[in-house]
């Protein structure tokens, strides 16, 4: 900061360590290093003494021993005989599942509410302002608990679906909303190859359709630039997206396994537990309110001159939005959007309040309590979240650098 231009005079004195700007920063850093080392040493010694007093040690052996508890919502095979490590992995996958689902729906809610809040319609914009204020100012934990209560205390039990004149009935005979969770049909292929191969095939098809549709759009743009006439692409694109999909479904024999009431509970289909729904919905509707504010701020930040310039060029309002306003607004919207995704991932640790077995529930909850390995479990837990957060921020930095306005 301060640039010293006069050459050093006289010889070194001890007081120069504090009074001379050349040495002072070295002195301060030496003191900081000393304090840091001392506090790390003291903390380590405290930990060692405290652990020794309780006859404990630091060891990660517990990860290999059988977990001994069950997890009802899981994406991979898991039994109570599986190791604690596998339980942690089930938890990690559950965290990623709910975080991913909530990110998608929160974006939908947020963009919708943010755009509608700028609507000319007085009633709609006021309603959206109401939504944003209500959800931003009440803790997400309370929202999770409220929606979990709806899922468990308000929805009917499976028993209500029985009998000749049941109190509750299934939606389209395929979806059952019960207090044990939501049961939905499970798609499968009658003449499929078995395993995950069929779904891989469908995924490949979708990727192929994506590139096909892009090629069609690019060709249309080329023709437009050459001749001024844009060929219609809507029907071609629809055919590219849905044609192969329908064909493959027919060939492989796509059908659905419907949930059925057997005994006291529904069997078959996909079960989505109430805890997952509560967490998913609460996180997306809460974060959606924050995203709505970002979207609104982003759109409003594009100066009015841009819209007017677009109008002066003769662009219609729809094209003004898609070609002029949105590309500039996205530059402002996306960084806070990504940090909201990060918040969703971190807030998904509140799963423990409703008994959804995410990584906080398995590794930081049951495993910690059963093995008593507090330090190891909490450290692993923090490490997991840290890796996720740092990789998302690294991605964000790359994005920001590519999107930065290039100024000269």
């Amino acid at each position, binding site marked *: 900061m301060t640039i010293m231009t006069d050459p050093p005079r006289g010889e070194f004195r001890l007081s120069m360590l504090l009074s001379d700007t050349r040495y002072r920063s070295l002195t301060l850093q030496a003191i900081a290093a000393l304090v840091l080392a001392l506090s790390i040493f003291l903390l380590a010694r405290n930990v060692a003494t405290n652990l020794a007093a309780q006859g404990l040690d630091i060891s990660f052996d517990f990860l290999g021993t059988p977990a001994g508890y069950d997890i009802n919502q899981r994406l991979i095979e898991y039994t109570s005989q599986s190791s604690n490590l596998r339980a942690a992995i089930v938890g990690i996958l559950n965290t990623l599942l709910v975080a991913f689902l909530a990110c998608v729906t929160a974006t939908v809610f947020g963009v919708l509410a943010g755009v509608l809040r700028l609507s000319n*319609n007085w*009633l709609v914009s006021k*309603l959206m302002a109401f939504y944003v204020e209500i959800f931003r100012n009440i803790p997400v*934990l309370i929202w999770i608990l409220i929606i979990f209560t709806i899922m468990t205390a308000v929805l009917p039990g499976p028993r209500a679906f029985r009998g000749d004149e049941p109190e509750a009935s299934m939606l389209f005979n395929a979806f059952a909303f019960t207090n044990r969770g939501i049961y939905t049909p499970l798609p499968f292929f009658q003449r499929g190859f078995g395993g995950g191969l069929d779904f891989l095939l469908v995924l490949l098809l979708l990727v192929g359709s994506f590139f096909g549709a892009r090629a069609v759009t690019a060709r249309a743009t080329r023709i437009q630039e050459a001749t001024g006439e844009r060929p219609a692409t809507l029907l071609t694109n629809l055919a590219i997206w849905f044609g192969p999909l329908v064909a493959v479904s027919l060939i492989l024999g796509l059908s659905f396994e419907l949930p059925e009431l057997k005994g006291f509970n529904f069997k078959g289909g996909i079960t989505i537990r109430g805890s997952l729904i509560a967490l998913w919905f609460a996180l997306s509707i809460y974060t959606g309110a924050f995203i709505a504010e970002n979207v609104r701020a982003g759109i409003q930040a594009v100066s009015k001159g841009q819209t007017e310039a677009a109008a002066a060029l003769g662009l219609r309002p729809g094209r003004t939005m898609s070609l002029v306003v949105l590309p500039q607004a996205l530059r402002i919207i996306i960084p806070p959007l990504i940090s909201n995704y990060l918040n969703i991932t971190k807030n998904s640790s509140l799963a423990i309040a409703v008994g959804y077995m995410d990584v906080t529930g398995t590794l930081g909850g049951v495993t910690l309590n059963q093995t008593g390995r507090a330090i190891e479990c909490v450290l692993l837990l923090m490490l997991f979240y840290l890796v996720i957060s*740092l990789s998302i921020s690294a991605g964000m930095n790359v994005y920001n650098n590519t999107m930065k306005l290039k100024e000269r």
Partner: protein
Amino acid sequence: MSDQSTNSVAFVRTEEVAAKPPPNTAAGPVKWVKDNLFATPANSILTIIALYVVFLVLSGALPWIMNGIWESPSLKACREILDGESGACFAVLTERWNQLIFGFKYPTDLYWRPGLAFVLLFFAAAPVLFFDLPRKLLIITALFPFVAYWLIWGGAIWAPVTALLGIVAAYVFYSRFVAQNFALGFFGGIAIAFLVWILCGYIFPSSEITEGAMRSVPSRDLGGFMFNMMLGVTCVSLSIPIGIALALGRQSSMPLIKWICVVFIEFVRGVPLITLLFVASVMLAYLFPPGSNPDLFIRVVIMITLFSSAYIAEVIRGGLAALPKGQYEAADSLGLDYPQAMRLIILPQALKISIPGIVNVAVGLFKDTTLVSVISMFDIVGMIRGPILASTEWNGVYWELFGFASVLFFVVCYGISQYSQWLERRLATDHK
């Protein structure tokens, strides 16, 4: 001229005709409705959908609230009074009011103490929040933490008085020497404070003195919304100075200090608050010296303060970065040293820019205080989920209780954010 025109033209109006009012469809409420609700077909559909949603919500909620029962000993009795009709059972709020606000173990006859502390909080906060009030009132703010501590926890008056004496001594020393050298004033002040505390510890051994003692209440007996308020106020006020220090450290040209601050901030911002609360409840005990068993309240305050200070540091770093470089250069050219430049030129402006961000962090932090219910502390959410919903009388009264907690948080958080908007307008010195 005039003669000719009177002859040739049959009639000329001599006075102006008053303008007619616009037709009903182009003015007043009709026009407003047409422009704002039914401008286009799409807009009309949106309006109708919105009206239907409003109708659905109101038709469900209004009878429920209007029919609310405020006096009843239990949910069962309440349902009998309602006799199958839709209606809320607000009786749980009147019956369990004290538990919701103060927790279930705070001595009943001592409720006036936290109540008084709550009232004093407004007097203490007022001079900080509103600059027009006389600056002398800041003395109340300075005294408040000690008075509030004594009121809520009770115990011998010597503890807060000793703490206050140390702070006063440090302040006197600081204001005497800060003009000469900031470092001398600051670090000397801290040393003096510790000296006073140690001396006082010798003079009045706290366990023996009982004069001026109020009945003491242990931390584990605190609870309810009071607990959320205490955590929120304490952690926000502690984390702002730490956040400033961290932000300045992150801007520092000294690599070691910068590195320490960056690692700390990124670490804390990368993990969820729950894991830090786990640290407070199960791990922090291992980090303290053997034999000392710090109170769970203090452990939680430490972790939440560290958490929010990292976020506040990032907000203030944004403020520091937003200042034009000329401000730093101007401070240098005036010959100010680093502490002077920061205190007199940089921080006042940077903090002003950071106010909205700091308020956002404060609101978020206040909402996050509910997470302590996860580590089985009985704040308002913990009280609702634990003792109240588990009791035989009130098992099943979800909406009234969660609704009440939501209203409390909404009032506080919305109030704070409105204040910050007012403050932003108030502090705006640029021309719009």
